[in-house]
Each structure stands twice: as C-alpha cells, then as structure tokens.
C-alpha cells in the first residue's frame, strides 16, 4: 500500500490527493488561521473614515461627533459579517467548493448534450 507501489503516471493523474490537500489547506486557513485575522479597517474603509474627518486634528473625536452621518455608517457596514469565524470558514469553504465545482460540472454537461445532438 505504499506510495511507491503505484506507477508514477497513475499517481500523477489522480486528482484525489489535490482535492484532499487543497480542501484541507483551505479549512485550516478558513477555520483556524482566520481567527487571528486583523480587525482594523481595510483601505477602502480607511478612505471612508478619512474622507469625513480629513482635516480634523483629533480624528477619533471627529468621528464620534459625526456619528450617524450616512458616509460614516458605511464604514462599519463594510466590515464583513463573519461573527462566528470558524463556522463561517467551514460554511464558506464548503459553499465555494460545491458552487464552483457544480458550476463547471453543469457547463461540462451542457457541452456534452450539445455534442450528442
């Protein structure tokens, strides 16, 4: 059962190791590593925040003062809704894998049907 027993060509053609390793890496990254993600705003959110209080000496005070203004409301909204990181990672990885593979599988099916006509 060792890997060396398999012929090289057959081993190279199999996609299972790639799928298993790829999904494994994705799960480790999305479920575990994502817990250590930085929570500071991204560049776009920074632009929103800066655009409101660009000239203020104390940006934090200025932001508190302008709280409720439409453009400021956008900044926290831009923070994604991954409240339960591990669960979000699991669901997201599964959903993107299924939707991605499913989409191209359907594409493949439509091509076969077209050819058989």
């Amino acid at each position, binding site marked *: 059962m060792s890997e060396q027993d398999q012929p090289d060509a057959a081993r*190279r*053609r199999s*996609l299972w190791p*790639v*799928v298993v390793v*790829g*999904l494994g*890496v*994705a*799960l480790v*990254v*999305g*479920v575990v*590593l*994502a817990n*250590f*993600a*930085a*929570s*500071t*705003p*991204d*560049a*776009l959110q*920074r*632009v*929103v925040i*800066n*655009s409101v209080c*660009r000239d203020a000496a104390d940006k934090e005070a200025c932001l508190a003062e302008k709280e409720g203004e*439409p*453009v400021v409301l*956008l900044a926290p*909204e*831009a923070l*994604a*809704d*991954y409240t339960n*990181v591990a669960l*979000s*990672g699991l*669901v*997201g*990885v*599964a*959903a*993107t*894998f*299924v*939707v*991605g*593979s*499913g*989409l*191209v*599988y359907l*594409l*493949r099916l*439509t*091509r076969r049907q077209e050819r058989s006509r």
Partner: protein
Amino acid sequence: MHIPDGLIYAPTAVATGVTGAGLVGVALRKSRHELDDRQIPMVGVTAAFIFAAQMVTFPIAGGTSAHLLGGALAGILLGPWLGALVETVVYVVQALAFADGGITALGANVIMMGFLPAVGGYYFFRAVVGALPRTRGAFLGTTAVTAWLSIVLAALLAAVFVVTGGPLPVQAYPIMVGVHMVVGVGEAVVTTAVVAAVMRTRPDLMATRDLLPPRPTEKGAPAT
C-alpha cells in the same frame, strides 16, 4: 477592498452590474469550450482556498488591514476565464451569505477583483513569461510581479468606482493605490508560494504549463 452597498451611485451599480453579468456570460462560454474534466474539482478547490484566504486579513502600516485577492493566482493556475469564474463564485458567496461586499456592488467587485486580476493578470503573465528565458526564476518572478500589479490596478479601479462613480473624495486615489502598493507585496508572496508549490507537485494541472521551464535533470544548475 470589497465595495459595500452605498459606496457607488445607482447608475454605477447598474452599469457595473450589467457589464459584470456580460463578462460572466463570456467567461462561461469561453470556459465551456476549454474545460476538461480534471478541472472540475480544481475550480472548487481553488475557490474554497481563495475564500478561506480572503478571511485572513493581515495588518498594514497606518491602522489598515488587507487580505489576499487571489485573482492573479486563479488566472495563472486555471486560465483567464475559469480563474475569473472562481473569483465570481467567491464574491457571490461572500455577498449573499456573509454580507461581505454589497449586493448592488457585486458587479463592480467582480469586475475589479475578479476579471481584472484573473483575465488581465493571465494575459500580462503570458506576454512577459513568453518573452523571458524559460527558467524557474523568470516564471516565479513574473508571478510575483503579476500578483503585485493586479492588486495595485484593482485598487485604482476601485477608486475610480467610488470616486467617479460614487460619493468619495479624490483623496481615495492616493490612499487606495498607496496602501495597495504595500498590500500587493503580501499578495505577491502568497501567490508565488502557491504557484511554486503547484508547479513542483502538479504542474500538469496548470493552465500555464506550456510556459513552464523544462524539468531540471540535476540540482544546482547555474542561473543564466
């Protein structure tokens, strides 16, 4: 860099929505003819990896953070149109299931963070690698440059959307481009590492395999 709802005006949302849908249509038609069975699970795995990697935001100087986009990575690994479809799947799942990126901004996000880096990145990569000597260094070096450039240009396009097509001031340009010149380095490092790993283990699965350097027969050959 995901644009939320409200950061682009309605006409911009409509124009980018229609353009994005058209591009997805083109990508579906193009990939339908180029697709082989082996790519079906690869598309799913790449989408899953990019989704996961986009959750890991890393801090940048100045109280800002960023994450991998993966557009250039998807293009180099799967080809321009499948690569763009992978990114589209990621942004659709993020917008619908996690409110990451606005639904009205989905077209803008798909164009800016999907089609620009995957399609543009792929053709830029092909042109540059094709003109260089067939070495591992040239292949991976071009991968890094493509990844960096894809982020900076995506940031520039995002700024166009939110400034010209949205309510933000022109100061968005230097902030977006400036920050992403730094962010692009992270993108280049991750993209190059993943491409190097796939290149070493499964080069047969790469859409750019015709550009790969010949397999070395001995280690430590002098660089040219």
